[in-house]
């Protein structure tokens, strides 16, 4: 394998738009989203239901089904554009280079096949491994996630929710991919199991160096695990920056509202505000800034002027409060990511 120069980026998404084409018109669920994921980076994507985060993830993994359609943009992975690839080309990289862990393992696993048989299917899709190879690799990945390899003979219903999610993650690790895409893998779990799984994902990631895109509605969950955080609202990126910067100094009023909406179990009991109203119906998007009807800091021009992504000390923010800062386009955004990765590897070295 050739060793590409650092900084390397695993995935580049640029100007991606996804529309649901319906009889009564089309709904744009993802609107001109651009970002990049560096090698071994953990990117958290957060947002409320209907903000387009799952659609975005499905578009990246090329899993969209009609009526959803990618209408613009590209997804580049290892020099290939995933958007224009055929199914045959895709199956060559699925599981091997990119794997996806779905929200509900109960639905994602086949209920009538044992865990071992499902692992074997994946392994056989990319070569002709011997039975012994299959057995040893399957046992190895199960051990990696802390499940006794005896469970290779178990069926999904015989495992607890936490173990099923772990088994899904083990399956995603069969080929040690470069990118693992996770769609709310912990949302069906209790807090204790959730915390344990997050710690484990992070450990595996540090050990094997794959990149992670982690979609969740619970921003506090990724606060300690992601390198960068992308906040989505109404199909657009509203804030994108280093996780700590976003938590310590949220710039977008929406991000500020989200953070203030989390009750804390520590410290003084403070009154919480939440965000008034509810996320917009994407079929009737507000003029100007999409957040302005719910924004506590709304200005007159927010109602007409569409905000761009402004660069505030390395964090991209889609809010007119910062329109004196330089505008970043999608391509620039991708470069920022590369630079961040470079800075990180310099710091690591």
């Amino acid at each position, binding site marked *: 394998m050739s060793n590409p120069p650092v900084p390397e980026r695993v995935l580049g998404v640029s100007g991606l738009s996804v529309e649901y084409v319906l009889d009564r018109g089309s709904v744009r669920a993802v609107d001109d989203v651009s970002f990049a994921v560096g090698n071994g980076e953990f990117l958290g994507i957060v947002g409320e239901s209907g903000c387009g985060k799952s659609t975005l993830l499905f578009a990246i993994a090329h899993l969209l089904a009609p009526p959803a359609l990618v209408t613009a943009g590209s997804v580049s992975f290892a020099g290939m554009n995933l958007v224009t690839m055929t199914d045959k080309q895709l199956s060559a990289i699925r599981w091997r280079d990119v794997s996806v862990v779905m929200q509900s393992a109960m639905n994602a696993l086949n209920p009538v096949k044992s865990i071992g048989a499902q692992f074997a299917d994946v392994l056989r899709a990319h070569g002709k491994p011997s039975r012994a190879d299959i057995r040893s690799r399957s046992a190895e990945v199960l051990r990696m996630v802390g499940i006794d390899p005896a469970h290779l003979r178990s069926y999904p219903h015989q495992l607890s929710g936490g173990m099923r999610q772990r088994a899904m993650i083990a399956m995603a690790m069969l080929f040690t991919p470069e990118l693992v895409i996770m769609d709310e893998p912990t949302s069906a779990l209790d807090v204790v199991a959730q915390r344990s799984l997050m710690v484990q994902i992070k450990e595996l990631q540090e050990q094997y160096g794959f990149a992670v895109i982690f979609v969740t509605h619970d921003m506090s969950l990724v606060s300690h695990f992601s390198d960068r955080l992308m906040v989505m609202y109404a199909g657009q990126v509203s804030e994108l920056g280093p996780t700590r910067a976003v938590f310590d100094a949220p710039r977008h009023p929406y991000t500020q509202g989200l953070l203030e909406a*989390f009750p804390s179990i520590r410290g003084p009991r403070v009154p919480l505000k939440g965000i008034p109203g509810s996320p917009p119906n994407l079929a009737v998007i507000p003029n100007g800034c999409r957040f302005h009807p719910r924004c506590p800091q709304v200005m007159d021009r927010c109602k007409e002027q569409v905000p761009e992504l402004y660069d505030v000390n390395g964090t991209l923010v889609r809010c007119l409060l910062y329109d004196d800062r330089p505008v970043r386009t999608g391509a620039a955004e991708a470069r920022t990511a590369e630079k961040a990765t470079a800075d990180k590897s310099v710091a690591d070295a």
Partner: protein
Amino acid sequence: MPELQSGELLRAEHLTRHFKIGGALARATLHAVDDVNFAIGQREIVALAGESGSGKSTIARLLARVYKPTAGKIAYEGRPLSSIRSRGDRLRYSGQVPMVFQDPFASMNPVFRVSHGVMRNLKLHRPELSAKQRDDEAARVFEVVGLGADMLQRYPYELSGGQRQRVGFAQALVTRPKLILADEPVSMLDVSIRIGLLNLMAKLRDEEGVSILYITHDIASARYVADRLIVMYAGQIAESGPIEEVLSAPRHPYTQLLLSAVPDPRAPLNVEAETDRGEPPKVIDPTPGCRFRWRCPLAIEVCEHVDPVLEDLAGGPGGAPPGSGKQSHAAACHVAQSGAEVKAFSA
């Protein structure tokens, strides 16, 4: 008959519910709720927290009379539920103790307007009202839950999740309830919407005088509205007491584990609990002994064979249900009861 103490609305004593599982040859008993004692006072929000399978929803169903207890008693306003026989009594109880469900998308009939459920409840539980009075009452209740009377004519698909959950509370309110059983009412909602619903629950307590049993796995949200916290583990109460007291000084190792696992972006990462996989226990034909002992770093010999009893930590009488006038902090843990400091997991 269980005795009614002042300020008490409902009291459960030795409440137990078992389920038979397995086929004829592998008959086993699942102990969903085992010998649970608690009371709910007037104008009080009691949070019932615990992981899935800990028995919290079974308790809600026992209180809603969906299940009959295997053993033990529930008394509402001093009268045991087992004495409810007539249709009138049943209606009176279900009107005063209604339920609000977890999934606002599944708990409403999509082909009817949202006024349907409210009007049905009014006709059933308050037949003395005229049609005009029913309309007025429905409009009033919709205002109380923050929806506005014009929403009555909408269909469920036109409403967001938060609005639907408010409809759920409106349906419960028209029957003039005293205790609302809310089973995970906000867990399906987005974070920015949840606070509004939690505030609504606090408002119902403060302005309408309703008590709420708030069943949740989210302790942080419980802290925000509840007066008292009951932590369940494997069908039993692990710890209970005034919520601030329990959260600031948890005495049961399980409560400590639960608190240490709550993600908090404002605090530094704590990975002490990482060795615990969060596997819920199966309570099938349990043997005596503490049910948390396999996960507990502090387990001592007595934990292996003696069931811990929920006991007031201030040294009160054994197993006294908390909230019975006095607000006691109780834990079912041998180590805590021995007076030793319990520090299993740090929050």
